[in-house]
Structure formats: C-alpha cells, structure tokens
C-alpha cells in the first residue's frame, strides 16, 4: 500500500482531542487522543515531536506545516516535524542557553520562580539520555550531540501512537432531477464503484464527512452544495 501524503490538517470535533489529515486524494485520516482502547499523545496526533507552538506561523510555514490544532503546528509526517524542531532550536533564542537552562525556557517557566517538577524531570531526561554535560550551551554541541539532545527532548515530550482512522471521502460524479427540477439523487463514486444515493442518504454521508459536499441547512430543509472550487452540480446532470 502506498504511503499517504498529507497536504492539509485541521482540528477535529470536538476540538483538542483529534486531528484530521487530508491526503492528496481528498480522503481523511483522523488521529484520536483516546479511542478503541488506544491513547495517542499530542506530539503524535500533530506529527510534531517537539510540540512546537504555531506562534506567528513563520517558522511553521518555513518548515513544512500543513495546519494547526490546539495552538500547535501540524506537520505532514514525523520527519518534517522533527526537522522543524531541529531548526527551531538552532535559533539564537535557544542556542545561547545551557542544557540546564533549556528546559525552563522550553517549558515557559519565567525567571525568578522556582523550577517546576516538569523542569526538574526534563533536565534529568536530557542528562540521562544524552549523557551530555548540562553546563554546555546548545550552541556548543556538534551534530551528533545535537541529535542526542533532540532525542532526549522528544522522549520527554512524549511520542505515543494511538488510534488512527482512515475515511474514504467519496465524490459526487452525477445528479438526477425530479419532476420539480430539484436534485433527487446523487451518483457517488468511491475508490472502486459508482452508486446512486437518494438525497437524504447523500446528505447523511456529507454530514458524516464521507462525501465531498457541503450540507446547507435552510428553512425549507437541508440540501447539498459543491465544495469550494469543485464543479457545479448542474454540470453533473445525467
């Protein structure tokens, strides 16, 4: 099976507990926090091993982001997310810090207040995993040592794979009109076949995110309209 290439991502519903990825075929892959007995970490859900925030978006955009969820950047895959973290820590903001100072800055503990429990453990994780001198600055590390630091930080940030669901999103390739000249049926195409669906069935599919169409709820009832940039339904009349 070919590896899916994700081109866009967004926060799932309800917010904060899932991320929806869209691949080049318009199909969805959803990564959940907690589903089917599996618990996935935030870093895994966002393909963001450093749990980097989106910020002003410039670093995210420079390093291949495809969306944001829970204020943090979503990357198309682990390697892209790791590279973004690698480049972020190359900025002077972090380079000047010693490894002892880094966890405070990285976890946002302000100067003048005591270390949090997290900072204390974060240091320990860096020290034990990287085996580096904690008084060295990030800037002083050679490539191999820098990778050890990233690996240690990634361990603390928590990459835990959870449940991932693949949803084929089908396309409308034809319509039929009734005597009143309104759409009564949609011809829906999945990866293998085409099938006619009554209007209500097609609306239900769209509401469930399984059909490329937008549900409009009007006073006279619900109806479908094409997604932005898609063909008008009039052009699909059979």
């Amino acid at each position: 099976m070919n590896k899916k290439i994700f081109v866009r991502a967004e926060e799932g519903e309800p917010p904060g507990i899932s991320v929806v990825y869209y691949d080049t075929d318009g199909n969805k892959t959803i990564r959940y926090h907690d589903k089917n007995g599996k618990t996935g970490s935030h870093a895994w859900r966002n393909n963001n091993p450093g749990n980097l925030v989106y910020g002003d978006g410039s670093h995210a955009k420079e390093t291949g982001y495809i969306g944001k969820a829970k204020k943090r950047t979503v990357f198309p895959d682990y390697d892209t997310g790791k590279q973004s973290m690698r480049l972020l820590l190359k900025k002077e903001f972090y380079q000047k810090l010693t490894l002892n100072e880094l966890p405070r800055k990285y976890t946002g503990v302000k100067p003048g207040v005591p270390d949090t429990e997290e900072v204390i453990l974060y240091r320990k994780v860096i020290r034990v995993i990287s085996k580096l001198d904690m008084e060295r600055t990030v800037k002083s590390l050679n490539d191999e040592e820098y990778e050890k630091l990233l690996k240690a930080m990634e361990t603390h940030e928590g990459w835990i794979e959870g449940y991932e669901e693949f949803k084929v999103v089908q396309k409308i390739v034809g319509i039929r009109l009734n005597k009143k000249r309104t759409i009564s049926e949609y011809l829906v195409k999945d990866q293998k076949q085409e099938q006619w669906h009554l209007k209500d069935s097609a609306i239900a599919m769209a509401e469930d995110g399984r059909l490329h169409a937008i549900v409009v709820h009007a006073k006279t009832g619900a109806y479908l309209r094409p997604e932005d940039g898609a063909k008008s339904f009039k052009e699909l009349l059979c």
Partner: protein
Amino acid sequence: MKIKNFLSTLLLSFQALIAEPTLEDQVKAAKNPEYYIHVVLTGVVKQMIFPGPPHFLSVENGDWAEPRTILKIDDASLLRLVEAQSRVTPNHYLGEFIDPEIREDESDANLVTLDSSFTEEPDKIELYENKIVTIDAVISAQPTRCHTPFVVEIVEVLSHE
C-alpha cells in the same frame, strides 16, 4: 571607577543570562525606539495550572502540570493588546515568535501569560494574586509551551489595589 565599570560589566553579563532582551536587542532598541512594543494592561493576577505533555489535556490524568502567572484582563485592555500585537513584525523584539493576527475573539484571549524577564528586577507579581493591577508590559514571544494566546513581559507595575 574601575570597580564600578567591572560591576556594570558583571551586571550586564548576568542580565544577558537571565533576562530575555539580549545585548543585541538593546542595540536594536537604541536604533529603533519602537523595537519593544509596549501596552498598558489592567486585570486580575491569577495563578493557573495548565496541562502539558504528553496529552495537553488533563493534569489529573497524568499530563505534566505547567503553572503560569496569568493576568485576566478587562475588555479595554484586550482591545489595546490586540492592536499593539497587530503591529508586531519580524523586525520587532522576538517578532519571529509572535502571532500578530490574534484577535479578541480567540478562545481565552483575555488570559495573558505574564513573563517577568524584561528587566533584571524581580517584579514580584505573585504578591498581587487575586488583586487588580495595571502594568506597563512589552509584547513577548509565545514559547513552545504557550497556553494562552497572548504573552507579555512586565516592565513595571503601575498601580494595584
């Protein structure tokens, strides 16, 4: 005099280690008076705990506790903050880490993380917990572990209850 110069150098070195504005920032600020974007904010000081890794959802369920000092600002302050932050460019202080497009309708926009690193003087803002304060602040960076839309550094507490 030599001792005074030595102490000044020592203080600057120490400041460079603990305070966020670096010597490079100070040089840029000397050339550009608008380098630091100031805003006056009024609100209630709160100590809040946010969930951190691995899930960023619940401390009770095992996420790391990330305590923060927060200023819960009033509506007028929020509008001032949004306007001030909208002026941030990559050429301003920490501009490459700041999102200038955040608006007042962002979730929890009135919760502002307070970071005291702008000066070497301890701000002791924790002493004002649950009290209303007015502060002069500088728009600051959203660090990796940012839990609120806005972050500022305290320059000075202008008034308090």
